[in-house]
């Protein structure tokens, strides 16, 4: 059969690993057919070409209209690792656009990707987790992940995966648990996260604290996070500002309940929090002010903080309006008297 190539010697600058892309609107349909061909080389080349095309949002939209997603879902379980890797990469890039995300949710890609979590090839897993992470940032995506029952699986994977993938999993978890935390709690999240809080990597510590923050927004989560408060207080003095910010946020939610407040006071949380508030450019300022407000509701806390009201007065000059408001509320709470 005649092929489009004229001579056996290709021009020197063409990438031989990519399929030639047809002109204009025909590009994607042709790649769609090539992907379904039984020959491995054609499939791989088509996938490489598709990977480049999909950076354009219009092409993403067109791809979803044509029905690429179904074919790509079938390719996820291909025996060849390059095919799987490229497919997951394509899903990854598609998930970066909103159109892509909506399309992926509608076609139910997330349960299909869940089967890839045990893939022997690292990069496939990494891409799959990246897709999850990006989908979780959408509310519908997070709901979809929860519905697919992926939380226990993700928790389990957290123990055994590589560091990069752990970061992605923690991000996914933090976004999903914002919606609902009961599944995670039932699969023993706290023990796993507790040991992650003392991990050597900075990003993992900060992300684990973020997950605890999200768990703490739910009432049943607050009780459980209360057990981790001493570790969080020790993280307040960590060298990295991200870790401090996340830990302060987690403490903020954990100290809402009275038991949490008592344990935080007992763990001597006030001095590091004051230091964070005093720092002008710290990201943790807002959370620290809020946490101190919580602690000021207790009598001992109020007594200790009455001496430090000038720190809060300084916060009133912060350019961010939220910080100013928080500082006013804090001062009010500290100066409140029962009579």
């Amino acid at each position, binding site marked *: 059969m005649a092929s489009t190539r004229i001579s056996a010697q290709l021009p020197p600058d063409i990438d031989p690993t990519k399929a030639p892309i047809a002109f204009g609107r025909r590009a994607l349909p042709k790649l769609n057919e090539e992907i379904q061909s039984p020959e491995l080389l054609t499939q791989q080349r088509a996938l490489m070409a598709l990977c480049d095309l999909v*950076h354009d949002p219009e092409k993403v939209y067109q791809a979803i209209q044509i029905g690429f997603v179904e074919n790509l879902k079938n390719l996820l379980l291909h025996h060849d690792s390059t095919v799987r890797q490229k497919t997951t990469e394509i899903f990854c890039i598609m998930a970066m656009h909103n159109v892509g995300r909506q399309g992926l949710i509608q076609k139910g890609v997330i349960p299909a990707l869940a089967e890839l979590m045990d893939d022997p090839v690292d990069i496939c897993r990494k891409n799959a987790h990246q897709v999850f992470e990006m989908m979780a940032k959408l509310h519908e995506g997070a709901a979809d992940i929860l519905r697919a029952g992926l939380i226990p699986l993700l928790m389990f994977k957290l123990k055994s995966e590589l560091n990069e993938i752990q970061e992605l999993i923690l991000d996914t978890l933090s976004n999903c648990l914002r919606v609902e935390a009961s599944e995670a709690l039932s699969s023993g999240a706290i023990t796993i996260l507790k040991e992650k809080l003392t991990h050597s990597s900075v990003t993992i510590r900060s992300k684990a604290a973020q997950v605890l923050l999200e768990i703490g927004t739910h009432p049943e989560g607050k009780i459980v996070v209360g057990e981790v408060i001493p570790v969080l207080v020790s993280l307040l003095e960590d060298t990295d500002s991200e870790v401090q910010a996340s830990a302060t946020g987690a403490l903020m939610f954990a100290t809402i309940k009275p038991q949490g407040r008592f344990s935080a006071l007992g763990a001597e949380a006030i001095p590091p929090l004051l230091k964070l508030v005093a720092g002008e450019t710290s990201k943790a300022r807002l959370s620290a002010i809020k946490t101190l407000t919580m602690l000021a509701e207790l009598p001992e806390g109020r007594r200790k903080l009455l001496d430090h009201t000038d720190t809060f007065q300084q916060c009133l000059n912060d350019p961010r309006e939220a910080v100013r408001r928080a500082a006013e509320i804090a001062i009010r709470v500290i100066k409140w008297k029962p009579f």
Partner: protein
Amino acid sequence: MLPAPRRGAAAPAAVPYCYCSPPRALPARTKYRPPPEAAPQEKEPVRYANVMYDPRVVRGNTYALQVIPACTHLDLFEIQRQREARRKALARKRAKEQVQLTPEPVEGREHVHVQTELYLEEISDRTIEVDTECQTDAFLDRPPTPFFIPAKTGRDVATQIEEGELFDFDIEVEPILEVLVGKTMEQALLEVMEEEELAQLWAHQRAYAELRNAELAEVQRLEEQDRRYREEKERRKLQHMQMLQKQKETTEKIAAWAFAKRYLTDLIPSVFSNLRESGFFYDPIERDIETEFLPWLMTEVEETLEKKVLGRMMLDSLIRTVVEKRLDAFSQEPLSGQTEASAEEPGPIDAAPQEADEIEAADLPVTASEESDQPVAEEQLSRRISFQLEEPDQAETEDLETE
């Protein structure tokens, strides 16, 4: 057909030239062959075609015509085949000649071939051969066609394109380069913008998340505060209610105490008076007299009375026995006195209870008149008792009698 070039003497001018075949205009060929069942065509007016468009007309130069040899290239094989074909044709012809055309000679005769022409010919198998040779000139190469140079008309004008005038690479390559570079840049920009957009989105989202978390924490704190205050309020309310309850109870108790106190103030005097009235506070001597002396007195009185009663009874019994004896004595009389006796028997029997009734009736007004006096009443009472005790005795004795 071309007129063959004549060798020999010059052609006499008088003899007109005659053709082997007169030239004629070629009629036009119909484009399509006639249909097979067509009738023989009637004579149509001859249509002449244009010679110029007739494919049968030879084109080109007529004065230097190249004649294409009949067989261009014969290799050995084809030459052999042609020789074979010629031999076969000869053989066929000879076989044809073998066929007898005349009948068989009659007996005694013999057919002989005889020449009958005017001039006899010597016939022999061997034909008279005269070898003549003719030799053409060796084939010369066709001399090259002389250039046809038509007469020059017009003016000569020359133009020459120097190198670099028609095609300037730098200018021509510009649009191609623009497209290439543009596409690459576009793709690169797209990717960079994508990442930047994403980074901005995440930063935006993080800032929003921070604010949201802070607000959420504030909301939850206020909720918690509210809950605590509410619980505290409930507790205090409960406490206050309990206090009020206790207060009420205390006032009731005090009122009850006051009332009880007042009620009981004259309890003691009234109790005492009641007791005194009911005889609890007794004078011991009086009591002594009452409890001991008087019963003894009474018993003594009773005894005395009993003695009297006994005496009366004795008297009664005496009277009775006497009366009975008299009755017996009177009843010993003849039978005319039996009915009187029998009438009298129930009579005394009636009389006895009647006596008792009479005595009772006599007692009753006595008791009625003397009821007011208690000790005397007691006496009467005891007497009645004793009489009543006697009554059954009497009734018993009477029964014994009637039996």
